[in-house]
């Protein structure tokens, strides 16, 4: 009797530990598209702005997989040798570029996706041929409007002793941390090629930092409790949380910042490439680009879209704005990332 109880308990224990559910196995159909994106509010916005209209217009069915960050998605593509079970995957420039170098993502052409030629060439070329830029975000300086006064205008505000203990910085695994490191370098006399001032600045900042967090969404609870007042954050998400009533605002400091290109890609092993191209082309069309940029509060790489003034000022919506940002070669970042990560970890551990 008792042994049965113990065994039962052990089974319950094991079941409770098996928390990750397997991905659904999907049989390919000509009108069915499996799209991998992100969870949380992204999923809701995707559903309303893209999934439902596309399904109606093209008599298709989209299965949306919200799991994984961009680099986790890429890890899955690599682990499955280009066949993760998705037809379209939403990632960012670094993964799209790496995917081409590792021949795991399908190169795309203007013949497949005519709307590619409507994007700013200097933006689209950065991720071509395996990525299509569906949005542009940038690293903004997000701050608590109750506690940080006056509004900050420099990245150096992070090193202001008044804000000690109210700072979050991302962990080096995330591209946000790489950008923060580079901008710290710019703020203190260096740049991405001369990164030493950046690492020196991070070493000085470490005692002032509350937490170092890998996932940007995990930073928000600290911001909600107003425990953290300063953090680097993507403009689109900062806008979203400001809109939800958090006492925050976001700025581009005077030293500038770096933008992050969103990228749509088709894995080599995609079952329904024809519909994948159709979906990407539709997403890049003027009307959908405008709707997506408004709904997800991000910038667009397509010119000639009309946005309300507030949106135009807060997000990238013209090539002139694009050029105001630091142009950091994503390929260069890709090559340096592993070394920088090691150096960062050593600085933080010291």
């Amino acid at each position, binding site marked *: 009797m*008792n*042994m049965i*109880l*113990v065994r039962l*308990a*052990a089974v*319950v*224990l094991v079941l*409770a*530990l098996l*928390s990750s559910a397997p991905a659904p196995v999907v049989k390919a159909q000509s009108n069915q598209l499996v799209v991998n994106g992100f969870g949380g509010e992204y999923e809701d916005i995707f559903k309303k702005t893209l999934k439902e209209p596309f399904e109606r217009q093209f008599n298709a069915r989209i299965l949306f997989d919200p799991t994984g*960050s961009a*680099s*986790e998605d*890429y*890890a899955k593509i*690599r682990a499955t040798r280009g066949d993760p079970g998705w037809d379209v995957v939403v990632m960012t420039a670094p993964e799209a570029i*790496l995917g081409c*170098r*590792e021949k795991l993502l399908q190169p795309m052409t203007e013949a497949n996706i005519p709307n590619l030629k409507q994007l700013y060439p200097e933006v689209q070329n950065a991720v071509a041929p395996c990525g299509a830029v569906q949005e542009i975000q940038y690293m903004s300086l997000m701050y608590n409007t109750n506690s940080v006064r006056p509004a900050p205008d420099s990245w150096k505000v992070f090193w202001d002793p008044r804000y000690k203990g109210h700072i979050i910085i991302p*962990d*080096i*695994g*995330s591209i946000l941390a790489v950008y923060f490191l580079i901008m710290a370098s710019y703020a203190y006399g260096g740049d991405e090629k001369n990164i030493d001032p950046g690492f020196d600045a991070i070493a000085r900042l*470490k005692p002032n*930092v*509350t*937490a*170092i*967090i*890998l996932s940007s969404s*995990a930073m928000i609870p600290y911001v909600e*409790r107003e*425990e953290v007042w300063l953090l680097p954050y993507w403009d689109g998400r900062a806008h979203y949380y400001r809109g939800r009533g958090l006492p925050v605002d976001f700025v581009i400091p005077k030293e500038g910042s770096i933008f992050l290109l969103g990228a749509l890609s088709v894995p080599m092993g995609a079952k329904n490439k024809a519909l994948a191209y159709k979906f990407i082309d539709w997403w890049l069309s003027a009307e959908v680009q405008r709707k997506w940029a408004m709904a997800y509060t991000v910038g667009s790489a397509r010119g000639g879209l009309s946005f309300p003034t507030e949106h135009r000022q807060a997000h990238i919506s013209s090539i002139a704005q694009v050029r105001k940002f630091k142009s950091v070669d994503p390929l260069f970042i*890709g*090559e340096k*990332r*592993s070394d920088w*990560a*090691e150096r960062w*970890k*050593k600085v*933080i*551990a010291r």
Partner: protein
Amino acid sequence: MEEGDRALRPAWRERRLPAVLVLLAPSLIYLLVLFFVPLGILAAVSVLKFHNGLIVRELTLEHYVKFLTDPFYLGIMWNTLRVALIVSAVTTLLGYPVAYVLARTRSRWKGLLIALVLAPELSGVVLRTYGWLVILEDRGVINTLLRSWGVIAEPIRLVHNYTGVIIGLSHVLLPFAILALMASIQAIDPTLEQAAMNLGAGRVRTFLRITLPLSAPGVLGAFFLTFSLSASAYATPAILGGKGVEVMATMIYTQLLYILNWPFAAALSVALMAVVLVTMFASARLVGRMSGVFQ
């Protein structure tokens, strides 16, 4: 008696061995395909070159050399083992009295009590760990209470350091220790304890001379189970660690899923597995010798 034993054993083996193989076959095949083959792949990836962000098909031992010669990575291994040792000691010590009560109670609520011990496992490790964050952080429950009572002026750092990781892991792993200990204490015949007491041994002496030595396999099992689980734990150190806290699992995770340096991640995994295995074998032998002293 001993002679009879020797005479019996070969016959026992002859008759039962095929049956044993048949019974073992499913799990052996399962392990072979889903455990040893992937481990082989892991080992193979760990000797590939990584250059400028790409995995190159060229054999190298540079990742192992880096791990073994860089004090930073050796330090992370040491942190991991230190946390695992403390956590397994804490959970085994805390789990023993609970397991003893559960094993010996005749209460009709026994089932409920066991369910209560296991209840935390139902909520998932990530959720529970966030719960600890709310309790332990600077503006969390503990620090707020202590400050309002005037016990402390500045918050005590209970989280974003190894203290937080050890608290969180001990909670997560306590049910494992209790289950392992309970099974072993339950197997001890209570009449042995009664006999000791009849012969004049006090409760403490009975426990030290009878119960504890007989439950040694359970203590060992609980210790090793929680040791290996905490040495490989990811979620708790990732959430409660934060600033400057790095263990092997968090480092492997970052290398694998974010830096995408798979060869180095694989080498770190192989190193972690090797060290955990060696530690476990070594301490099993040590404890085996020590428990020999008891008998």
